[in-house]
Each structure stands twice: as C-alpha cells, then as structure tokens.
C-alpha cells in the first residue's frame, strides 16, 4: 500500500506499471478497467489491491473491448478514466477505440498499451502499437522509464481534459518492467460518481455527423502537435551528427553516448503522434548525418525521411540499415550503430561459445493440465488427431513432454479455427481453451460451430482463475457458469469432469470425439494457486 503514500517529494522504487498507477492516482483517476496481459498485467493487479482504499472504481473486464467500452461509458458520464491492456488487447478493443477518438471524451481518458518487442510473453506476433497512430488518429506518448510513466500519464490526462480526446500511453516490456526510484507528487481524490448528460451531438456517430467528427478530430491533432513541439527536448552539444529517438531507445542512446564518450545532439520526442514536425525539421536542417533509433518497424525513420526532403535533401539518414527491425534493442546494438555513424572505433564483443541449456517453462507441479494432456494422450492416437491451442498456461502443450499443439493463434481462436478445419477436412480435432480465454472470446466461435454445424471436441480447461498473467479473477468465479453458457449455445454433448477422475475423463474423450455434432468437456479443477 506504499503506493498510496501521500508524501509529495518522497522517492519510491516503482515498476513502470506501478508508476502508471501512481500517475493515474495523482491525476485523480475515478474509473479503471482492464483485461490482464503481460507486460501490462501489474497495472490491473495493483489497482485490484488498492482500488477500494483509494476510492477508485476498478474492474477486470471480460475482454479488452469490453474494458474499452466500460471506459467509454465512464468517460461519457464525466469520470476520469484509465483503460489498460497489452498490445493484442488493443486489437480486440480497436473496434471501440476508433469511434471513441471520433466522439472524444467527456471525462478525461487515458489508454495504456504495452508492447512486447522480442515477444518475451507474447505468442502471436511482434506487434508495434505505434501503427494505431495512423489508423485511429490517437495521440501517443512514449515514456522511457518509470518516472516518465508516472509523469506522462498525468500529462496524458491533462491533454485529454483540454482537447476532449482519449490519449494513448505506449510502453514496452523494458519500460513496464523497469524499476527505479520515482519522485511522488500529491494524490488527488475525486468523487465516485458522475452524471451522464445526454448529448447526441457528441455521443452518436451516425453519418453524416461522423464525417464532421473526423474533421474535428484532425483539428484537435493539429492543436496537440503544438504541445508535441514544446514537449520534445534536445540535449547534447550542437554537432553535424544528430540522433532522434524516444521511449526505451532513448535510454540506450544515452548509455551508448556515455560508453563512446560522445556528446552528440539528441532529439527526444516523447510524443510519437502527432510528431513535432517543426522541431524535427529545425533539428535536422544543419546536420550532415542523423541516426533514428527506434525498436521494430521504421515508422519514425519514414517520417524523418519525408521531412528531410523539405529542409535538407543531402542529409544522410541512418536507421534500419544499422538497427534491426526484429527483436528489442539492447545497449550494445545502439553502441555499435552510433559508433558507425560517428566513425568511432568500437570492437564488437564476440558471443562466447558455451554449452547451451534449454530450460523451458513447465506446468507447475500439481497443475490440473498435466491430467488433461495426459488423459487426452491415453484416449486418442495423437497422430490421427489435430490439436488446437489457445492463449494461456496451456500453450505449454506445445513444449516437451506434451507436444500436442498443432496451431496457436490469438485469444479464443482455437474454436474458430477448429470449425474451419472441421469444415475443410474429415480429420478428428480436439481444442484446448482456458476458462478466462473462453469468456474473453471463445463464446461466439462456439455458437458458430452449432450454427454452421461442425463437430470439434472442445476441452474447456476451467482452473477457476486467469493463471498465466498472475491469477486474476474471471467471470467463472462470480457465478457465471460455463456449463450454462455451453448448454444455452445449443451444445448437446456436454460433460463437466474433474480430470483427477482419469478413467471417466478418458472414456468421455473417446466417446465425444466420435460425435457428429460439436462436443464440450469442461475439465474443472482449480489451479494450485487458487486460494480455497
């Protein structure tokens, strides 16, 4: 509860995600919704612990789109709102995000999205959420450390308040899971309830009004660009070589400058969208060389290249020719790139040859999934069955000793893809999906198997928690019964079995896989970490 300390000036060691929480509390946040996902999970976990004491409404929503919509409702009712999720969550929520940027906010609203370059905890793609700048026209701030996480969240609330627009704060794993001493500011307390004041002009996106909204939005962005100009900073001595960067990459640039004893001028952006075009142009105008240091896709590099055409067409622009587009950056990558641009000698260190050990993550001792995977292997001939995977601890089905995962995609997709395979082939198929993932986005796909008549065997692994991201509660623990949903979807073959009863489990798998209609086994046994 130290995070609720009201001693302004005090320094507290905070994780980036905790600093985001603190920033929101200092800004006077009233409503928080999220769906857990690494590396964003600790935002929700922290609010879950402190919300009551802090007098803030907090919920783990069913999925990110629902979290976004709940946040929209709170904002329309005048509350200061924070919505948090990981990168893929923003894809799920994007259907609600785009119109929200059009209508704008009533209560100031900040959306936090956490990317995961190098995919430390992300199965499906190495997503760069910066792309939402061009898709949604949403202002994006990029903090580089926990202090900035706190400060930028407060700034984002101010921008949202002034321009009535939701603001995105984008972090990456090395920012959200970075710790440092953070200087606290005063906490702000706000009322718990707001009021929805009817205003169809703002809240209804029907055409032709929606096009007017787009015009208003683009106008807001141009105004915010002025702030982006002011908030970007130049440091270091004037020279003929410059660096443009933001977020975590800025820290590596400073580290590299220290290592190479270079004092180049560095433009730190803070805003990824809208970009401070004037500032960038004046920065590059008299340079001979500029290095763009950014992780993943060269979004910034492309912008700088186009601006350079206006002010300095002889400028040599370095970026993805020296810095990889795949995987997160590391200090040594930036040191090497900087040395090349500045013509400094830098001997790259060879990676030492050592015996390689591969220690894969494992299902915990006592995890009920051991019994599900083991039982399935006893019930069917693995070679004759296609196994569908989904997002959760049970992704470990794809690793030794299990090796029963033939495809893995996005949340809830195991069922949707199973249906497609069943329609396209005559093969047997079993999918694994967890309880939280089923609630998140498995239900519409299950309805589709009934509606369009296919017959996969779906094993819903109900361990009564959202285990992988840190044991957050899900609707199953509050009386929403999965078997009632499955039955209501029109599934005829349904059994709830504790996989500890292996004989019954194996017998049911053998029986259900032959059914001409979709069948569901709910394998219910609590995660070893669920408190009874």
């Amino acid at each position, binding site marked *: 509860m130290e995070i609720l300390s009201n001693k302004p000036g005090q*320094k507290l*060691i905070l994780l980036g995600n905790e600093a985001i929480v603190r920033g929101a509390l200092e800004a006077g946040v009233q409503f928080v919704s999220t769906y857990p996902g*690494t*590396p964003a*999970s*600790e935002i929700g976990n922290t609010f879950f612990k402190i919300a009551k004491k802090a007098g803030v409404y907090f919920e783990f929503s069913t999925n990110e789109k629902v979290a976004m919509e709940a946040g929209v409702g709170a904002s329309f009712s005048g509350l200061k709102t924070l919505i948090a999720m990981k990168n893929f969550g923003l894809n799920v929520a994007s259907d609600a995000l785009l119109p929200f940027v059009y209508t704008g906010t009533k209560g100031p609203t900040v959306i936090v999205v956490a990317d995961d370059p190098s995919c*430390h*905890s992300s199965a499906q793609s190495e997503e760069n959420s910066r792309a939402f700048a061009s898709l949604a026209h949403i202002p994006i701030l990029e903090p580089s*450390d926990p202090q900035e996480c706190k400060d930028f969240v407060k700034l984002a609330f101010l921008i949202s308040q002034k321009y009535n627009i939701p603001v995105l704060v984008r972090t990456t*794993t*090395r920012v959200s*899971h*970075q*710790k*440092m*001493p953070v200087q606290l500011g005063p906490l702000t307390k706000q009322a718990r309830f707001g009021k929805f004041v009817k205003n169809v002009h703002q809240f209804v996106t029907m055409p032709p009004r929606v096009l007017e909204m787009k015009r208003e939005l683009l106008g807001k962005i141009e105004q915010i660009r002025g702030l982006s100009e002011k908030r970007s900073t130049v440091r270091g001595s004037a020279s003929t070589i410059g660096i443009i960067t933001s977020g975590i990459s800025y*820290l*590596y640039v*400073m*580290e590299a400058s*220290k*290592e190479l004893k270079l004092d180049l001028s560095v433009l730190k952006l803070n805003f990824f969208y809208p970009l401070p075009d004037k500032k960038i142009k004046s920065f590059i105008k008299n340079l001979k060389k500029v290095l763009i240091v950014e992780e993943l896709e060269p979004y910034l590099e492309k912008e700088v290249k186009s601006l350079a055409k206006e002010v300095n067409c002889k400028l040599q622009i370095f970026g993805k020719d020296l810095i990889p587009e795949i995987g997160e950056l*590391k*200090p*040594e990558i930036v*040191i090497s790139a900087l040395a090349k641009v500045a013509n400094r000698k830098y001997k790259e*260190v060879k*990676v*030492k040859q*050592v*015996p*390689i*050990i*591969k*220690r*894969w*993550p*494992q*299902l*915990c001792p006592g995890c009920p999934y051991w019994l599900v995977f083991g039982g399935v292997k006893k019930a069917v001939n693995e070679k004759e069955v296609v196994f569908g995977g989904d997002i959760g*601890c049970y*992704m*470990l089905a794809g690793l*030794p*000793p299990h090796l029963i995962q033939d495809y893995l995609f996005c949340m809830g997709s195991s069922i949707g893809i199973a249906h497609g395979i069943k329609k396209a082939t005559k093969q047997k198929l079993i999918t694994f999906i967890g309880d939280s993932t089923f609630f998140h986005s498995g239900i519409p796909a299950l309805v589709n198997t009934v509606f369009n008549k296919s017959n996969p065997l779906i094993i819903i692994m109900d361990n009564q928690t959202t285990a*992988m*991201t*840190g044991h957050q509660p899900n609707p199953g623990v509050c009386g929403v019964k999965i078997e009632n949903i499955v039955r209501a979807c029109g599934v005829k073959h349904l059994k709830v079995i504790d996989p500890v009863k292996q004989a019954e489990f194996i017998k049911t798998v053998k029986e259900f896989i032959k059914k001409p209609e979709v069948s569901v086994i709910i394998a219910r046994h609590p995660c070893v970490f669920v408190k009874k």
Partner: protein
Amino acid sequence: MKKDFNIVIVGTGGQGLITLLQIIAEAALASNFDVKTSELHGLSQRGGSVEVHIRFGQKIYSPIVAQSKADLIIALEMQESLKATYFANNKTTFLINKHIVPIPLQKSLSEGQILTTLKKISKKIKVVEASGVTTGVYLLSLASFKGLIPLSPNLIFRAIKKVIPQQYLEVNKKTFELAKKHAKT
C-alpha cells in the same frame, strides 16, 4: 564509486529473483545511488530460466546491462550461470550456488563441465553451498560481506527488513548472520 555497477542475476522461475532485485534496489537507493532494474514477468516464471538486471551509480540510463559489462553475476543455479556469460568479461565475478536443478528429458551438465567453461572466461569464480538457506539473500549478503558489491552489509540488512514480508523475516535475518560468519572463513 565512479563507474556504474552492473549485476546480472540468473536462476530458475520461483527462486525469488525479483525479491532479491528489490532488496538490492532499496540498498542502492539508501546509498544515494541512481538505480534501475529490469525483470521479466509472465510465462517465463513457470520454472523456466529467469534473468534479471540491476545497475546503480551516479546516473543510470539503461535498465539492462550491456554485453560483457557485468561486474557481478549471481547464479542461483549452476547451469544457468552459463547463460549469463553473455554479460561477462575477464574481470567479472561469478558467485554461484552449488546446486543443479535438473531439466526434464535432458542430461544435466556436471559441475566440472560448467566450471571449466566459466574459468575460460574469468578467474573470479566463487561456488558456494547456498541451498540449505534462503539462497538469494545468502548470496547477496555474502557478496556484501566479501566486498564483491559496493553496498554495505548494514544497508543490505536494512533493505532485507524493508522488503521481506514479516512472516519470512526471521529466517532471512538468520541467513544474513550465517553469511556474515561464512564470509570470514
């Protein structure tokens, strides 16, 4: 201290590496150092390999240690020390728990194999028995008493008291005292 001090800690999920990181960070802050840490959460903690970083000094930018820049590598498991060699140079100290956690379906490397490899990289390899106690706190306390880390035992002790929950504090205090005793021998 003019130079930044860089530590990489490796082990397997569940060995308490993140708590250890918090203790060092608190001690560094109490010494008026700037400090940054980097850790990974999520599926990586399900018994897989874990690697965390902490850096402190006058002004710290990057939360992760650059290749071959570690001053101290603490390994809570012997085989994992090999993964940290990426961060080692010939002056790096390795402080290693004499303990091997087997990997299912794989043959474990022997202590001899591991040490032969490490000795080619640095001469400063210290292997200690730390499994009967709270391993991380023992290794950290030992490092402090032996002067392998520029943070005084007094500050480490205060940080332990701040970070460790009440119910586990007594055993960790004992561990600290044990490290003090062993450091002299």
